[in-house]
């Protein structure tokens, strides 16, 4: 659907089309498909000009000649007809019928989709119900019923296949049209007094065209297969006319004595359809990049570490966690660009360090880099050492790193609705956090998980443990997240904006809980936030990040009282204080203007 909106109200310009062609040809598989298909189409088109024997000339004396026999490259069939010649002429028929059916289905289906999506309301409802009804039939069965009604024959098979495919076009086109029918440029056209027909054809249709092309390219292969199928059953092409399907069907009787008579036409069908399918996939990728199958890369179990990273020595051997000169970046389209650079942080046992900065400053990338949780690809840890009790995390083998996750360093993430598994109960998710590192029997596991949930302030924990994340409030979900982090008494908890998605009162409760737990269990906390109010509340020291670099660091009180960096001043100025609301913007402006001076 973004295809339509992003390309704007006018059809794509010729420059775009050129680059689309290039993109298509860059896809090696699609290019092969295109070449193969062009070749097949060319041969089919040129059939009358090629030096081939008459495909229908029977020669009983030469029946069932094998492949590569004299004068018959692919042999002869049960009536002595030349298979190569019949194959060429049969492909011509099969492709013509398949493509014609595609066009008919596209024309009718798209019209239904356009009208339905544009009109909306009752018309839409009625038409889509009809389309759903057609789709309720098993695909081929409806085609069979239609051929049964119209009688066997190639044209009737064409109609049947086209009708069966109408719903695919109608549905896809309707979906996009529905979105477009309320777009500004359509409203503008309506206000300018254009008629509905003119709006549909000049405003909506050009934007729906990519969807129609995608649907055509993905269904054309099916339609050729189905046409061949009906002919195979004797319901399509009738003798003496032959398409590939009927050749296959007639040759079946000789399967055991002369298999080539039926196998060869099948190879031809296969070649046509597979070239159409790879071409179709390529077209879809070019026209709708969101659907591109290869666009999503599978993230590995840990972030990739560059082979020749610079690894500074551990400058704080007493620290429980020490990040030295971290540089993490992303590889996109073969180009590397760094997201954080030369970041150094350390955490003493039981200490709370605030990492503050605006969105995109690299706080989360830094936090995730610690235990190799940045999705990779595209993430790469380019440089730096991360020392956990003096051991470099990224020199550890996979199993060791994984065993440190959750047990030595645990994470609390920002949005607990997306970070909890939607289909497991919260009790099970907490149990899993425990059992990843501790061997306990079922009962003990359950007891421990309920105790944890109680500790983080979930009432009726035993009952609540059976609930799913979506049944809990945002604050409760974050408490579950904290319970999972606490499960193995880690040395360090990395809390990545744990209160950002929550409302203010719940935020205060969660902060209170974290403070309390830290005092009680003596663990170190790396607290990531964009809010200096929160930092003042909970952190011993604070590091300020901007554009992937730590710009200032120091004890919280000192830094708040006497910020050195302009950016820090601005961040502090942005914290509203009770009773000082008037002229807030005017006060803040002076800091910002100072900061923006060249």
């Amino acid at each position, binding site marked *: 659907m973004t295809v339509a909106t992003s390309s704007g109200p006018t059809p794509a310009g010729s420059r775009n089309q050129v680059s689309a062609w290039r993109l298509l040809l860059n896809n090696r598989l699609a290019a092969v498909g295109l070449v193969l298909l062009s070749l097949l189409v060319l041969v089919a088109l040129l059939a009358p000009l090629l030096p081939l024997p008459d495909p229908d000339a029977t020669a009983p004396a030469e029946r069932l000649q094998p492949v590569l026999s004299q004068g018959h490259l692919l042999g002869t069939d049960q009536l002595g007809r030349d298979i190569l010649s019949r194959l060429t002429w049969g492909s011509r028929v099969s492709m013509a019928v398949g493509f014609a059916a595609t066009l008919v289905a596209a024309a009718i289906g798209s019209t239904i989709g356009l009208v339905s999506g544009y009109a909306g309301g009752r018309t839409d409802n009625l038409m889509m119900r009809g389309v759903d*009804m057609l789709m*309720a*039939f*098993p695909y*081929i*069965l409806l085609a*069979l*019923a*239609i051929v*049964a*009604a*119209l*009688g066997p024959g190639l044209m009737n098979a064409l109609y049947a296949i086209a009708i069966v495919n109408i719903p695919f076009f109608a549905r896809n086109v309707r979906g996009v049209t529905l979105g477009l029918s309320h777009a500004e440029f359509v409203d503008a056209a309506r206000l300018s007094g254009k008629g509905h027909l003119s709006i549909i054809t000049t405003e909506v249709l050009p934007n729906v065209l990519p969807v129609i092309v995608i649907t055509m390219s993905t269904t054309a292969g099916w339609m050729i*297969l189905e046409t061949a*199928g009906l002919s*195979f059953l*004797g*319901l399509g092409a009738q003798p003496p006319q032959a398409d590939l*399907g009927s050749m*296959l069907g007639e040759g*079946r009787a000789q*399967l055991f004595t002369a*298999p080539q008579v*039926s*196998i060869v036409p*099948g190879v031809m069908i296969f070649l046509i*359809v*597979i070239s159409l*399918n*790879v071409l179709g996939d390529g077209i879809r990728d070019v026209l709708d990049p969101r659907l591109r*199958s290869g666009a999503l*890369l*599978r993230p590995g*179990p840990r972030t990739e570490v560059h082979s020749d990273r610079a690894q500074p020595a551990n400058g704080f051997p007493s620290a429980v966690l020490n990040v030295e000169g971290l540089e993490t970046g992303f590889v996109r389209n073969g180009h590397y660009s760094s997201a954080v650079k030369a970041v150094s942080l350390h955490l003493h046992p039981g200490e709370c360090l605030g990492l503050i900065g605006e969105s995109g400053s690299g706080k989360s990338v830094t936090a*995730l880099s610690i235990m190799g*949780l940045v*999705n990779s690809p595209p993430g790469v840890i380019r440089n730096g050492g991360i020392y956990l009790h003096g051991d470099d995390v990224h020199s550890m083998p*996979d*199993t060791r790193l*994984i065993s*440190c*996750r*959750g047990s030595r360093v645990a994470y609390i*993430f920002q949005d607990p609705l*997306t*970070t*909890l*598994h*939607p*289909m497991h109960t919260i009790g099970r998710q907490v149990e*899993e*956090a425990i059992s*990843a*590192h501790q061997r306990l029997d079922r009962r003990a596991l359950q007891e421990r998980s309920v105790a944890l949930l109680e500790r983080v302030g979930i009432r009726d924990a035993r009952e609540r443990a059976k609930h*799913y994340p*979506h*049944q809990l409030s945002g604050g409760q979900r974050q408490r579950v*997240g904290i319970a*999972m982090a606490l*499960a193995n008494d880690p040395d360090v908890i990395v809390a990545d904006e744990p209160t950002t998605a929550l409302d203010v009162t719940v935020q205060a409760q969660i902060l209170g809980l974290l403070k309390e737990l830290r005092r009680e269990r003596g663990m170190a906390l790396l607290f990531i936030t964009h809010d200096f109010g929160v930092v003042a509340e909970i952190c011993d020291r604070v590091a300020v990040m901007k554009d992937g670099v730590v710009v200032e660091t120091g004890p919280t009180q000192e830094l708040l009282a006497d910020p050195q960096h302009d950016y820090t001043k601005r961040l502090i100025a942005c914290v509203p204080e009770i009773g000082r609301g008037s002229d807030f913007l005017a006060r803040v402006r002076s800091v910002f203007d100072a900061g923006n001076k060249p």
Partner: protein
Amino acid sequence: MSAYILKRLLSIIPVLFGLSIIVFLVMSMIPGDPAIAILGSYATPENVERINRDLGLDKPLVQQYFIWIGNVVQGDFGRSFALNRPVLDEVLERFRATLILAGVALVLCSVMGLIAGVISAVRQFGWADKAITFVVLAGISMPSFWLGLILILLFAVRWRLLPASGMYAIYGGGDLKDLLLHLILPASTLAVVAAGVIARLTRAAMLEVLRQDFVRTARAKGLPERQVIYRHAFRAALVGVIPVIGIQAGFVLGGAVYIETVFQWPGIGAMLVKAISTRDILLVQGGVLIVASSHVLFNLAADVVQTMLDPRIRA
């Protein structure tokens, strides 16, 4: 849960009525006079008129529909003139054979498709992924009846491992082992295309899910990769793939038409092809209606399974 199933069951009643109307309308489009088809060379004007009266064909279309559907609801699908037996008896007998074939094929394609899709996603761009992607592409691009012929040539003719056709051996068969032996080739052939479609979608769904926040949470907990993939990612991806399996049921049921013809399986697809060529309208009508209705039920079952797997929809 049971309330939900009941609601869904009730909601398919209008769909079934819609199906019956489409089937009836399509059949009534048949050009020519069915009476002539039945009578053949005995088609004198008097005989034609009598047959038309007997079959109710002299009445208006709407009335004909309600007479037919009224009888159908009571289990009377009329008589097949070519076979001279009640349509329902013939259809049910044939449908049993089709259900066995399609059911086994559906299980086969779901299992193969899911496994192939997960492997393909987990080993993205590895040789396993490339091989699976290629096999899948080939599988969805070849005519299933052609594949069936090749399998017959290889397994039945050349290596003589498996029977080439039919449901039971003519002599001495009839037990479950015999049935299974006869099932292997047609069920595998029928499963290939659907397995390809399911594998493609599973791969895409897995790749999508593996990027989601809750997978990162599972990793942050320190779960081994195997658990991250199967317990967390696959579980979530499966919910999206289940409805696709429901849709594939339709392709498998429809595709059975070819496979039954190739392997001479005594199912409803082969029956329909024959009934179409003999213009046995009531038999076609009844057969299409039964298969289409069962497809609707398959989809319903897929919806119910999806709901059971996903607590968010269940609520």
